[in-house]
């Protein structure tokens, strides 16, 4: 589903590469944690997959597409196959919960009929039924992140990228979010989650990819957060 072959990204000529010859393969339906300290290359890793950046060396394949050769006007089609969730939720403050989720479908041209049947289903999945008419500022952090997840997943993309989805949440709320992501993963969706949250990684016992200084230092099935804990 996602494959990096010796992917290298150098932002400025002569500078240390942000990602240094990383080769990883993530299969359909995998749940993978991407860990590493700040500046280790996690963000660059996600940006390469989203085709926000192009690799300066090596190849990137996502959902059957060779991203090195993907022309700019095909990029939106790639992004429809990838749901993305962020630490800061990125909801539209002047739209209700329902409108926030519907927005993602509107702007890719789905019919009103499709939207009316899909959005309530998705809000039900993330546990927000009954709160459709609330605005983001009327929700707790965990609830806001659920809206963001609903928006990312409403088009049923085969890949879900999560960049520190629990970074702004307390531990109890984070567990709820992880349960939700796990449930989405069980529908066959590939989930790639970049995180700093060691407790969650240790609890979930999923595959762990660790980056340090742009290099892949660990790719471990059923791993934990830090090597020293093995």
């Amino acid at each position, binding site marked *: 589903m996602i494959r990096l072959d010796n992917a290298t990204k150098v932002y400025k000529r002569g500078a240390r590469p942000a990602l240094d010859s990383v080769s990883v393969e993530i299969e359909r339906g995998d749940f993978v944690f991407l860990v590493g300290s700040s500046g280790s290359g996690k963000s660059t890793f996600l940006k390469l997959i*989203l085709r926000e950046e192009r690799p300066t060396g090596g190849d990137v394949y996502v959902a059957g597409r060779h991203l090195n050769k993907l022309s*700019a*006007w095909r*990029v*939106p*089609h*790639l*992004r*429809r*196959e*990838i*749901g*993305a969730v962020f630490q800061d939720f*990125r909801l*539209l*403050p002047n739209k209700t919960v329902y409108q926030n989720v519907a*927005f*993602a479908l*509107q*702007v*890719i*041209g*789905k*019919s*009103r009929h499709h939207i009316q049947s899909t959005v309530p289903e998705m809000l039900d999945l993330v546990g927000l039924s009954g709160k459709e008419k609330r605005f983001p500022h009327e929700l707790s952090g965990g609830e806001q992140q659920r809206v963001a997840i609903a*928006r*990312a997943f409403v*088009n049923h993309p085969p890949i879900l990228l999560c960049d520190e989805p629990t970074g702004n949440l307390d531990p109890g709320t984070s567990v709820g979010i992880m349960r939700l992501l796990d449930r989405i993963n069980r529908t066959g969706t590939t989930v790639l989650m970049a995180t700093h949250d060691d407790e969650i990684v240790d609890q979930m016992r999923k595959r762990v990819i660790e980056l340090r200084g742009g290099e892949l230092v660990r790719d471990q099935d059923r791993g934990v957060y830090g090597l020293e804990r093995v």
Partner: protein
Amino acid sequence: MRLRFIFGEVFNGLRRNTTMALSVVLVTFVSLMFVGAAALTQMQIDQLKDDWYGKVEIAIFLCPESSRNERCAEGAVTAAQEEDIRAVLEDGALSDLVQKVYYESREEAYGKFVANDDEGIWSYLTPEQMQPSFRVKLSDPEQYQVVADATEGLPGVDVVRDQREIFSELFRFLNAATVIAAALAAVMLIAAMLLITTTIRLSALSRRRETQIMRMVGSSRSLIQMPFMLEGAVAATAGAVLAIGGLFFGVRYLIEDWLKSSVTWVQYIGTSDVLNVAPWLLVIAVGLAAVASIVTLGRYTRA
């Protein structure tokens, strides 16, 4: 769905940015007004040229009884000389340029003179003192100089006059007016373009969250950029419509209703000419907005 979305966004954008949108409307209004005024002035000049040049002629005045002109030292033009001049005009190399030659005799000149002299100031003049002349109508009025050169030195010719000279000063004035209007229009158009650019940029910045999300969920670049482009285009078009309205009523009331009834001997442009200019003003407005969008949007809503 997408159309509804786009127009909803355009409406929201204009509402959120009312002052900027209004300033775009007004600046395009004024600048296109100048563009239109320049175009209409040129049309008026063309119309006058067509109208007047069709009527004017070259007048070849022949020597009268007593003239101070050296060329007429031999006294009044003789019948033989007149025949020679006519031959040059009608049969020689000039015949292609000449449409019609008309001979105005002393008596006819006198008759016209008296007819225009209501108060009888010139009543002491006699037909013998008048100058006979050839009135030459050219097939192409611009070829005046050729005919003048060929006839000026002929024996019996006093002086050759191009009646167009009477109008040349007026046309020079009107042309200068066009140049001034066009220059002002250019400055205003630049201002309009900069304003549209700023408006689009502000609009794009204020909706960065939306466009970011749209990018993220994979909406096409055209859908992301369309609302901003349309916003600029709508405001610019509104300005163009105002300008067309302004020109239309200006021509209608100032020229058709006022000038036409008070100064009647001139052919004027009319509201139909404004309607001929109108599509071009709209094209300029939309083009302006398009250029501004392309310059701005590449930077603010990349895919």
